[in-house]
């Protein structure tokens, strides 16, 4: 972009002049800076909507009141935008990659097109992207115990087992539910349509869609909620309920209900790793690997102020299900740990994907 700016200025076009209006001198790390938030998905998706929701609050609360611009760079299920970030991010923390498990799962699994080193990135902020698993009322079940006992074939519709459907598929493994997963849909919108048409009878949706579309279906009796992915508890495991649907058991609790004991073993370890990055830190803003601690601290400071802003608290309900925005050094540790699971977990995931879904890397 620098080349472009220079040339444009040389030619005397007015665009550059407009962009460079003198910023009012401000204190704070981001004073006078332009922050670019890169969303590697098309405008209109949940990540884009969340980024646009956060944009004005960042401008208001980040130290130095930078201008914030959300830019979409869709393609390759987020890989193209993340690859772009790897090559073009500014080291001062003014470029943010705001993305989901669509970037992290291919990274963890080592997909060949991935050119970005996600675990090396600094973590600026994150909010959960909870998921609720629900069933068709045609099954005549009201909870996960009855579901496990039903004789009706259970069909789950998904996009790709190696991307955002992975934690749902792993939850079926942990709970040992006899669900057939049919992959190949083109999005979570079409899977919800197929569920409404009765072509599938198990479905999962992330927070924003759950809050706005599925909650009314539950009220009408056209969907029966079963369980959520859970959220991180004091023990560091995904053992707590999710704030999106506090009435529903987590996978952890559902395992206790079904099998009488807390989950353990390689299936649970794999679910924990993948669900942590998919659900608990579902939407995460990453910075350049060399972004200074001052930038991380500035985000933490601004986000603390945002979480106290009544307007933000009001608005975040439909975006995050009410959860606050997280920032600071400890979430960086959690995110990085989830992005680097043990070799055993990686091997288990690769075997599962190869065996069930013919996915080989």
């Amino acid at each position, binding site marked *: 972009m620098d*080349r*472009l700016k*220079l*040339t*444009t200025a040389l*030619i005397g*076009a007015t*665009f550059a002049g407009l962009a460079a209006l003198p910023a009012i001198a401000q204190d704070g790390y981001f004073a006078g800076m332009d922050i670019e938030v890169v969303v590697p998905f*098309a*405008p*209109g*998706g949940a990540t*884009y*909507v969340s980024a*646009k*929701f956060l944009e004005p609050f960042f401008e208001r609360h980040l130290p130095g009141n930078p201008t914030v611009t959300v*830019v*979409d*760079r869709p*393609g*390759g*299920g987020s*890989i*193209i935008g993340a*690859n*772009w970030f790897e090559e073009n991010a500014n080291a001062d923390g003014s470029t943010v990659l705001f993305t989901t498990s669509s970037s992290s799962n291919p990274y963890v699994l080592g997909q*060949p*097109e991935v*050119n970005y080193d996600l675990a090396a990135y600094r973590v600026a902020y994150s909010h959960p992207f909870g998921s609720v698993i629900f069933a068709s009322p045609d099954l005549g079940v009201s909870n996960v115990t009855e579901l496990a006992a039903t004789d009706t074939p259970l*069909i789950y*519709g998904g996009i*790709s*087992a*190696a991307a955002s459907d992975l934690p749902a598929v792993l939850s079926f493994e942990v709970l040992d539910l006899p669900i057939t997963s*049919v*992959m*190949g*849909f*083109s*999005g979570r*919108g*079409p899977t*919800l*349509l*197929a569920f*409404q*048409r009765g*072509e*599938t009878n198990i479905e999962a949706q992330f927070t*924003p*869609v759950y809050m*706005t*579309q599925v909650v*009314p279906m539950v009220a009408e009796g056209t969907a029966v909620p079963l369980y959520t992915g859970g959220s991180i508890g004091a023990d560091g495991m995904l053992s707590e309920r999710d704030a999106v649907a506090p009435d529903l058991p987590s996978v952890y609790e559902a395992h206790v209900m079904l099998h009488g004991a807390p989950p353990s073993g390689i299936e649970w370890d794999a679910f924990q790793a993948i669900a942590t990055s998919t659900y608990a830190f579902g939407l995460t803003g990453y910075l350049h690997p060399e972004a200074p601690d001052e930038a991380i601290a500035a985000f933490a400071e601004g986000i603390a102020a945002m979480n106290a802003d009544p307007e933000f608290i009001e608005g975040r309900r*439909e975006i995050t299900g009410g959860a606050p925005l997280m920032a600071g050094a400890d979430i960086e540790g959690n995110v990085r740990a989830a992005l680097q699971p043990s070799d055993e977990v990686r091997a288990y995931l690769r075997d599962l*994907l190869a065996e069930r*879904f*013919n*996915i*080989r890397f």
Partner: protein
Amino acid sequence: MFQDAAMALQALLEPMRLLALFAGMMVGLVFGMLPGLGGVAAVSILLPFIYLFDSYAGLAMLLGAVSVVYTSDTITSVLLGAPGSPASAPTAIEGHAMAKQGQASRALGVGFLASMVGGLIGAVVLFLAIPVAGPIVLMLGTPELLMFALVGLFFASSMVGKDLKKGLAAAALGIFLGVIGPASAAADIRFTFDQPWLLDGVSLTIMALGLFGIAEAISMLAIGGGIAGEKMVLGPRSDGVRDFFAHKWLILRSSIIGVFGGFVPAVGASASTWVAYGHAMRSTKDKSKFGKGEIRGVAAAEGANNATVIADLVPTLLFSVPGGPAAAIFLGALFSFGYYPGPRMVSQNPDLMYLIVWSVALASVAGAAICFFITPYIAKLTRIPFAIIAAPLLLIMVLGAQKSTGTMGDLYLLFGLGLLGWMMKYADWPRAPVLVGFVLAKPMEQYFWLSNQLHGWSWLMRPGVLIIASIILIPLLLSAWRAWRGRGLPTALAEGGETGEITTEAAAVPEPGHVTIISTLLALIATIAFGYAMWEMQGFNSTSQLLPGLAIYPGFVLSALLLIQGVRSLRGASWGSFDEHRFLPVLLIYPVAIWAIGYHLPTIALLAWMLLVCAKMRWLSAAIYGGVVFAVMLGMYRLMRADMPGGEIITLF
């Protein structure tokens, strides 16, 4: 319902909202005319501005743009032959051929009026759909969607043209290009050579620009400085209106096809446009004018594409499932204004729903009127030497392509497919089947796989499937019966359904030399490509081999046959006075130069070459004109936040 509608109209008629709608329309009209920059580009560029207004005005602005893109794209398609947007490729074929015969006015008039009707039908459907479309969309299960794709393929079979081998090879090529990228059935990533820019497959925009736009730009450069007797005669405007009324039922049927295309998520305006075009062919007795300037082709295509883009809003508003890419951005805008589409929205925000209908209807009518008004002025542009128009046209197409992935890959594809399109144009291989195969390949594969996984083979007996299948089977059976009854009467056979297009032209003129040479080269390239694809696909899971196999094996055989046939007739074939191929090296040099040293210098050199050498402009005027074009392009790159990749070796400037 009517009271809500009246209140919504009143709300829209506030000056600020009308202004926003009008501003959106203006952007939509301009972007529709620029090849490669269609509704998605218009809506994304407007997106930051909608927040300057209240939610109603902001949404009206986006709708204004969406509603007119497929109206104004007719102008570029007809006058220049480069499709203004992918969904007007049939218009570029038929309308441009008419323009060359001095009938541009007819083509444009019918195109605008058909677009308007398509838009209005879309608006009416949206209005009626709000209370009732929910169940209809839910009735269309995956197997029904598969059947729609097959109906599309059946209609498209009319487009194969008179040389069966070339037409089918072209269709196979289209399906082959369409399956590049991830398979829907199993996790195979096909024919991407590990390049991230192929992960989503080839973009439809680049396909349409490459196959049609680049070839036209080359021809324009070859015509060069002179207007070569090509002075555009528009013809009287009243012709267009008369033709419109003569084909009103066809336009109505095409609009309904378009509406169904919109109901089905992920089947874009392109697919339904081709289906409507195929329908126009099947319903026309004398098919000889198709490809050479058939007004019915324009009427059907333009009626369908506008109807689709508006009916796209039905699944968007009722189920939050965007019907197309522009609708997806509109959905995001709705979210950001705090509206959450879904069945609830009909009862919660009826005024908003009807405001959307009114915006679309008003914009459709006003957009067509504006197009009528500006056409004489735009047509004057075509009196400028073609090479002078080609310069900005080519650069805009490059920018349009760059919006796909923002990597060098977009340029390789654009110019690679440009070469393919140019060769097909002069080798007499029909280009329509390539695009049809391309747009239908992925939906066919996906819906077949999902139908079988979700329903087993029982989907074949679903009532919806049987009803849609009858659309294909009844005409087939009818023509078979007619053929059987008319045994011994060769003329009747020639008219019957499938075989109708393959009339033997006894008095065929011998092929010009350049056609033989280019066709043979093309067959060679196709044979190698299919041969390689056969080898690579052996590594896929069997489910991912099915659809590619259906295209690649026959494609290999057909192109090999064409190669043998070509080599045999190659002796004695000469280029004659044909010299357009001398312009082809630029397709290679320009992208490679950008790869090596970045966008600026190669673009300046290209401009200089086009203006000084091809258009033979004088130094001073070329410098001024070229400078303005270059500055505008840089401004557009900035405005559209498009990347400028390249400069791998050294970035100059």
